[in-house]
C-alpha cells in the first residue's frame, strides 16, 4: 500500500519559480509517468518527492503522512538515477547491499536479499564485478536492483533509459513493465520520451513550465488533449495545426472554414466561443488521409519511406504539414496531393489554446493498462498469431 499526494507544491530557485503549484494524486500500484520538454520541472518535482530537494511551499504526503521535513532515506522510497549513480569502487553486490550495510543488517541477511533481487534481474553471475566491467544495460539493472533491495513503497525513476541505445531501451522498457507487475509497487517515472510514457504509464502527467498541463491515461491524452501543448507533445509525429475561420455553431458542433475555403463541422462543444474568435484546428499526421476529393491540398516537399509507412511533408501555403500514409504510396517529391480527414478525429482549439470539448468520448479514452491485459490475455491461447 503506497500512495502519494502532492498539494500545491512549489519550488523556487532564487527568483525563478520552476514548479508553480502542483496538485497530484498517485494511487497504490500505479505507474505514473511525468513527461514534458526539458526544463519543464519534471526532474525537480521528482527530486522533491525523493527528498533531495526541499519544497518551497506545499505538502508532500506519502501514505497520508506529511513528508516535507523527512530525510530522503526515511521516506520509504528508492530512486534510480539517469546516470545510474553506481558506486564505482564497490562490486555489484556491494552496490546493492550498501543501504543494508548502512542500516547495520548482518552480512548473511544482506547477501540473501541481494541474491533475491539479483535473481529477479538476472544479475547473479555479475555480483562480484565492479560497475566499470558492466555494459550499459547491466549497470541499469544493478541500479534497479539497488532500489529493489530497499523494498520501497514507491520507486522513482529519473530518465533511466536515456543513456541506453535504442534496441536496449525497448528491451528495458519491457523489463520495467514486467517488474512493475512482479513487484506490485507504485512507480513514478520521469522521461522526455513520449513513447516511454505512452507504453508504460497507467497515468501520464504532462508538465510544462512548472505546471501540470494534463493528467490522464495515455489514450485519454492522445484522443482528448486538453490544450494545444498536450496535443502537440503527445503523439509522434507531432500534430498538425491550421488556423481556421469560424463559420457557425450548432448542436452538431462548430463549423469552420478550412484553408482553401471548404467548410467542415467538427463535433465539439462551441457554446462558449466568442463570435469571430480565432480558432486552430489540430489533426494528427496519422489521421490525415490522401484523398483525391479531399478538402486540403499541397505540394510534397519531402518524402520519407519507412517501409510500412511513408511520411509526407506537404507544403500548404506557409505551413509544412506531415501526413502518415501507406508504405506503398506512389507519390514523388513535388507532386501535388489532395487530402482530407474524418471530422471526429480533428481537434479544435480556442484563442487561448484550450481544446473545445469533444461531443463524444473516444471508446479507448477510458482504457487502462489493466483493461489492455484483460482484453488480450484470454484471447492469447486460441488467438491468431
Amino acid at each position, binding site marked *: 500500500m503506497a500512495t502519494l499526494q502532492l498539494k500545491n507544491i512549489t519550488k523556487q530557485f532564487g527568483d525563478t519559480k520552476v514548479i508553480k503549484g502542483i496538485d497530484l494524486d498517485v494511487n497504490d500500484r500505479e505507474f505514473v509517468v511525468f513527461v514534458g520538454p526539458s526544463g519543464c520541472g519534471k526532474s525537480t518535482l521528482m527530486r522533491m518527492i*525523493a527528498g*533531495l530537494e526541499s519544497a518551497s511551499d506545499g505538502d508532500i504526503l506519502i501514505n497520508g503522512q506529511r513528508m516535507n521535513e523527512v*530525510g*530522503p*532515506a*526515511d521516506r520509504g*522510497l*528508492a*530512486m534510480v*538515477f*539517469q*546516470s545510474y*549513480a*553506481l*558506486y*564505482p*569502487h564497490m562490486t555489484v553486490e556491494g552496490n546493492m547491499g*550498501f*543501504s543494508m550495510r*548502512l*542500516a547495520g543488517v548482518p552480512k548473511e541477511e544482506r547477501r540473501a536479499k541481494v541474491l533475491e533481487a539479483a535473481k529477479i534481474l538476472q544479475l547473479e553471475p555479475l555480483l562480484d564485478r565492479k560497475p566499470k566491467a558492466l555494459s550499459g544495460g547491466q549497470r541499469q539493472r544493478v541500479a534497479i536492483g*539497488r532500489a529493489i533491495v*530497499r523494498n520501497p513503497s514507491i520507486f522513482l525513476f529519473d530518465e533511466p533509459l536515456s543513456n541506453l541505445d535504442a534496441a536496449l531501451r525497448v528491451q528495458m522498457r519491457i523489463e520495467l513493465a514486467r517488474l512493475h507487475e512482479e513487484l506490485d509497487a507504485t512507480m513514478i517515472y520521469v522521461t522526455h520520451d513520449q513513447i516511454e510514457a505512452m507504453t508504460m504509464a497507467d497515468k501520464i502527467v504532462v508538465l510544462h513550465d512548472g505546471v501540470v498541463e494534463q493528467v490522464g491515461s495515455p489514450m485519454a491524452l492522445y484522443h482528448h488533449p486538453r490544450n494545444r501543448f498536450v496535443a502537440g507533445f503527445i503523439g509522434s509525429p507531432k500534430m498538425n495545426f491550421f488556423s481556421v475561420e469560424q463559420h457557425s455553431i450548432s448542436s452538431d458542433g462548430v463549423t469552420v472554414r478550412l484553408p482553401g475555403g471548404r467548410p467542415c463541422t467538427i463535433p465539439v462543444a462551441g457554446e462558449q466561443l466568442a463570435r469571430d474568435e480565432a480558432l486552430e484546428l489540430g489533426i494528427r499526421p496519422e489521421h490525415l488521409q490522401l484523398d483525391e476529393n479531399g478538402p486540403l491540398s499541397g505540394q510534397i516537399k519531402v518524402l520519407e519511406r519507412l517501409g510500412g509507412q511513408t511520411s509526407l511533408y506537404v507544403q500548404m501555403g506557409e505551413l509544412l504539414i506531415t501526413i502518415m500514409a501507406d508504405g506503398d504510396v506512389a507519390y514523388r517529391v513535388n507532386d501535388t496531393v489532395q487530402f482530407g480527414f474524418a471530422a471526429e478525429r480533428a481537434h479544435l482549439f480556442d484563442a487561448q489554446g484550450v481544446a473545445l470539448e469533444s461531443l463524444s468520448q473516444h471508446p479507448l479514452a477510458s482504457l487502462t493498462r489493466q483493461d489492455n491485459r484483460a482484453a488480450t490475455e484470454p484471447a492469447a491461447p486460441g488467438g491468431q498469431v
Partner: protein
Amino acid sequence: MTTHRNSAPAHTRSLPIRQLVLTLLGWSIALIIFFPILWMVLTGFKTETAAIADPSFIFSPTLESYQAVQARSGYARFALNSVAIAFGSTLLALLIAIPSAYAMAFLPTKRTKGTLLWMLSTKMLPPVGVLVPIYLIFRDVGLLDTRTGLIIIYTLMNLPIVVWMLYTFFKDMPKDILEAGRMDGASTLQEVFFLLLPLTLPGIASTGLLSVILSWNEAFWSLNLTSSKAAPLTAYIASFSSPEGLFWAKLSAASTMAIAPILILGWMTQKQMVRGLTFGAVK
C-alpha cells in the same frame, strides 16, 4: 621508417622537424632546471679544493664530505623533525581542508567563489610581512623552536592550496553518487567516508604529496622560528654556511642528503603529482 618518411608529402615532412625542435627545447629547459641539482650532487662528491676550483665534470669522486657531514651533526635528528613536521602539517591541513572543500563543492553559496579567491590571495602576502607578529606570538605562547609551532605555521601556509585542490577534485565527483548514497540512508559523515573519500583518494593523495613537499622544502619559517630542538633539514643545510666561510662540498653533501628523501618520494609518485598540479584539469 626512413623511406616512409621521405616518401611523405612535403607538408607532413615539416612535422618531424617541428618535433625535433620541440624535443630539443624541452630537454634544454629540463636540463637548465635540473642543472643546479646535478651540480650540487656532483659537488658533494668532490674535495673542498676541487669544489672551489674551476668548474669541471672530471674529478675523482670521494665520500670525504659526506663523512665530514656525518661526523659533525646528527642528520637523523633533523630528518626526523622534517618528517614529523611535513607529515604532521599535511595531515592537519587535510583534516581541516576536507570538510571545507566538501562544503564549498557540494553546498555552494553565492560567496563560495569569493571565499576561495580570498583564501588564495593570502598566498600573495610575502611571509616576511607577518614575521614579526608571528614571532612575538610564538614567543609568548611558547611555540618557538617546537615541532607543534612549525606544524601550525605550515598548515596555515598550505591550507589555501590544499583546500583549492580538494575543492577541484570534489567538484569532479558526480553529485548523483552522493545523492544515491543519501537515498540509501547515508549520513553526511558516512557519505564522506564510504563514498567521497574512497572515490577521490587519488586526488587527496596528490594534494597531500604536494603539501608534504612544500612543507619539506620550506626554509623561511623554519630558519626564523627554530634553532636547535625542532629544526628540520632546511635549517640543517643552512647551518653549513658558517661565519668562517662556505664549505661548498660539505654544503652540497648536506643538501643532497636533505633533498634525497623527498626527491625519491616525488620520483615514485610522479603520476599523481602531475595530475594534482594540473588541478584536476587533465583526466
